[in-house]
């Protein structure tokens, strides 16, 4: 987010100079193009993030095998932010200021993205963020290749309402910003369809919550009211295993109360005994079980890269796959890795995704994605039971939140604004009030 018009102009001036600086003999042509990878390899998030690091490394390997980019090698620069949010900011700064990488692929949790954001904007870097998130953000320097709420949550609810006939809703989530926002949006959405308050139960739990007995039995009670009930789960990573175990053991099967999860993919299922979960749902933009050649090629490459026959792929990996190819495209288009050029070039770029379609980069730095609903199978895979007819464009600002209803994002010049308020007709923090705040 840009603090003030003055600051912005100064940065626009700075940009070309920066470009010139990069073009100096200091960096000759044969120097490799540096790709920063900012994923936790230790700490709580290592579980989810290590595979993403490997994915990017694999993609780089492949790209180099095909002769690199602009006749230059790609080189991965890996650091470990260790699931420590301030460390994310520090490492981002290291990558951009010290290593002078041309692009960063990284982050999983919202908080890590939020902590990196100011750094990336200050040092004018490029960040590709591969995980589904709460939206309500559009940065000039960040490209959101994961799903926004309207690319995951809302279609999932539509499916449950129309195809399963759910009338009663449990919105269960881990207590952090993604579930909070998503559930706010869903509540507003459901009520717009006339769902009554008493038919919605919202529940939040701390990270890594391991004792689900009470909550599951509450859900059970909530579901015995004679109306079809479903659980919309935004429960984060680690807490899912005990949650599903408890579901299974308290005998809630998908036929009675289906659970649709937004954070449970193939990767998470490798840690769960899936037998009792068969039939529970997940909404993603990609499943390993997708039956396309592109996907099979990707899977084969991945299995060969990891050397593990049982290795699985998941949605964020596809997001990186898409993001990486988009960046390659944009760099080719711009003929340089220089950030501002790439930023402009990438908008409108479209590359094939793994589900047999194309993903295009929108002016709001989100991409178009198909939405798939899958049912868990006993082999830890998902069988796809529903799919949006066409791809959905990511929405940075939800129409269901009072604060963001009037905001749009478009990074094309001349607007070049991440939070343009169509009502006040000004970009983000209306400059009009600037003085007043300056005084107080």
């Amino acid at each position, binding site marked *: 987010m840009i603090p003030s018009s003055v600051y912005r102009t100064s940065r626009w001036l700075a940009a070309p100079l920066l470009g010139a600086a990069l073009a100096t003999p200091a960096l000759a042509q044969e120097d490799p193009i540096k790709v920063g990878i900012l994923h936790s*390899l*230790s*700490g*709580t998030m*290592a*579980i989810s993030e290590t*595979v993403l690091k490997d994915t990017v490394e694999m993609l780089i390997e492949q790209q180099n095998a095909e002769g690199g980019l602009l006749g230059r090698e790609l080189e991965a620069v890996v650091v470990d932010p260790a699931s420590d949010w301030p460390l994310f900011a520090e490492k981002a700064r290291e990558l951009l200021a010290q290593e002078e990488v041309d692009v960063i692929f990284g982050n999983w949790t919202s908080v890590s993205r939020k902590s990196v954001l100011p750094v990336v904007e200050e040092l004018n870097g490029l960040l590709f963020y591969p995980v589904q998130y709460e939206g309500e953000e559009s940065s000039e320097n960040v490209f959101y290749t994961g799903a926004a709420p309207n690319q995951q949550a809302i279609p999932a609810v539509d499916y449950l309402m129309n*195809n*399963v006939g759910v009338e009663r809703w449990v919105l269960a989530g881990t207590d952090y910003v993604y579930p909070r926002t998503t559930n706010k949006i869903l509540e507003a959405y459901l009520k717009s369809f006339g769902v009554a308050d008493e038919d919605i139960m919202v529940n*939040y*739990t*701390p990270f*890594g*919550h*391991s*004792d689900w*007995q*009470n*909550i599951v*039995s509450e859900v*059970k009670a909530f*579901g*015995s*009211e*004679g*109306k079809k009930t479903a659980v919309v789960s935004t429960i984060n990573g*680690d807490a899912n*295993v*005990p949650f599903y*175990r*408890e579901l*299974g*053991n*308290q*005998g809630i099967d*998908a*036929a*009675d109360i289906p659970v649709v999860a937004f954070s449970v993919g193939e*990767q*998470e299922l*490798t*840690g*769960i*005994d899936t*037998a*009792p979960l068969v*039939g529970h749902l997940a909404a993603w933009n990609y499943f390993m079980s997708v*039956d396309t050649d592109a996907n099979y090629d990707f*899977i084969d490459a991945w*299995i060969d890269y990891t050397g593990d026959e*049982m290795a699985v792929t998941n949605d964020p990996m596809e997001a990186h796959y898409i993001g990486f190819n988009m960046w390659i495209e944009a760099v080719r288009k711009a003929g340089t890795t220089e950030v501002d050029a790439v930023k402009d070039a990438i908008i409108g770029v479209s590359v094939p995704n793994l589900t047999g379609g194309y993903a295009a980069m929108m002016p709001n730095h989100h991409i178009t994605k198909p939405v798939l609903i899958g*049912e868990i*199978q*006993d*082999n*830890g895979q998902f*069988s*796809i*039971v*529903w799919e949006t007819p066409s791809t959905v464009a990511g929405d940075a600002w939800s129409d269901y939140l009072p604060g963001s209803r009037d905001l749009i994002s478009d990074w094309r010049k001349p607007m070049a604004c991440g939070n343009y308020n169509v009502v006040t007709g000004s970009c983000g923090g209306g400059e009009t009030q600037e003085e007043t705040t300056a005084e107080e």
Partner: protein
Amino acid sequence: MTISPCLRRMLVLFLLAWLPLAASAQDDDGQQLLQSLDAASFTQMGEAIEAIITSGDERSRGWLEALLDGKLQRHKETGRFVVVLENRGRDWPVADALTGEAIGEMSRRDLDRLGINNALRGQLQSALAVLDLHVPETRDRREAARALLGDVDASLVEPLEAVIRVEEDAEVRRLLEQGLAIHRLEQGSLEAVASLQGSLNNRVRAALNSAARSDDPALAEAASVALADIEQQMKLNRGLETLYFGLSLGSVLVLAAIGLAITFGVMGVINMAHGELIMLGAYTTWAMQQLLPGQPGLAMVLSIPAGFLVAALAGIAIERGVIQFLKGRPLETLLATFGVSLILQQLVRTVISPLNRTVVTPEWMSGSIMINEGLSLTLNRLYVLGFALVVFAGLMLVMRRTRLGLEVRAVTQNRAMARSMGIRATRVDIMTFALGSGVAGLAGVALSQLTNVGPNLGQNYIIDSFMVVVFGGVGNLWGTLVAGLSLGVINQVLEPWAGAVLAKILVLVFIILFIQKRPRGLFPQKGRAAEG
């Protein structure tokens, strides 16, 4: 999910005269049937399923089951239908769906799965359920009958009544009658309410609930009266349930803490790597299951001694490698063992995987036992609860009745004196630490049935463990037991109205204030660790 009339018709016929149907279907018929299954929409698929059942083809059951777990697939080129025998990895062993003989491996790339959704799954399940009403095993018949609750409609009434007449098992009869009653209730019959009186079954309550909302005032009235009565009984159930939840959570805390109560409470060693020892126990369970594929139960049993051993050995290594050099400086043990815990975590990450591992729940541990229709206790937690008590009792025996226990206590009270009495204090230290660590391993084995088996497993329990030990009074095993269980119950009692997060906070605040009142914990004790 309701079963379509077509399916009904065939069931009626099937049930009224249940002599196995003539199996005279040619393969092409089978091919036909399967062909029709491979349909565009799920509705068409539903019809195809009915077709299969009505066909009375003796292979139909196999097909339906394969379909149910997504193992009925079509070869893309040949269009040949196969049943996948094992669907992990890239190449799957398959059998021909028609002839049933195994035909080697096929790449999943060339196969097309006949996918179903929850609605179809429901249809299949109840269809199979109806078929199951005729299997010899009573248990299965009960399952089938229970599965039919709420799925009965007009066309099933007659056949089911027929079944009831000849069914010799009372429980099956009761369940089927209940099913019929639910159906009648949906039809709006008042006396159905009477026959559903007092049943705590979820589906019954669901039916009554919707009846209570019906426009027929009399029915609504009766239903809500019945419900109110049921709610009364449920109240007691909920109370017991909460108690059970509390004890179960408590037992987990006790298991996690009891090892610490020994290493920390008795030896005064602040072992930050305790959590990782628990983790090792859990991974041992996983490893066991890898070694004995297909027999999770046996693996489970074997991993109890194995887990103890592995953790104990690790404990000995820690004691010899680090702690013995820190005699008399327990605080330094906190620092060193913290380092050890970091190393162990990363070791697991690099050697095994940063991802969680699947630990399968043996069937005798999954599900729950039904106390009554409305109250059932989850088995895995029941086992853990029992296990915790056994472990505790075992430890008490060791400490009270064995030579080791005696020596341990002697060394704790007065090291120098014990030495002079010819007790080899160093040996005792090793043994004690090994014991404590081994118990941590046991905790890991148990926890593998409840939560993630991953590198962070230990981290999630170390803090709580220390809380429990201190709350109970350092160096007092009874204290640990009481503390663990009571904290568990308090937490679970608070949770429903305070929410999970607030409940935990309140428990912590409670501990802080309690320590103000009793600066030595629940059961204060004299001895090295208690001084100062």
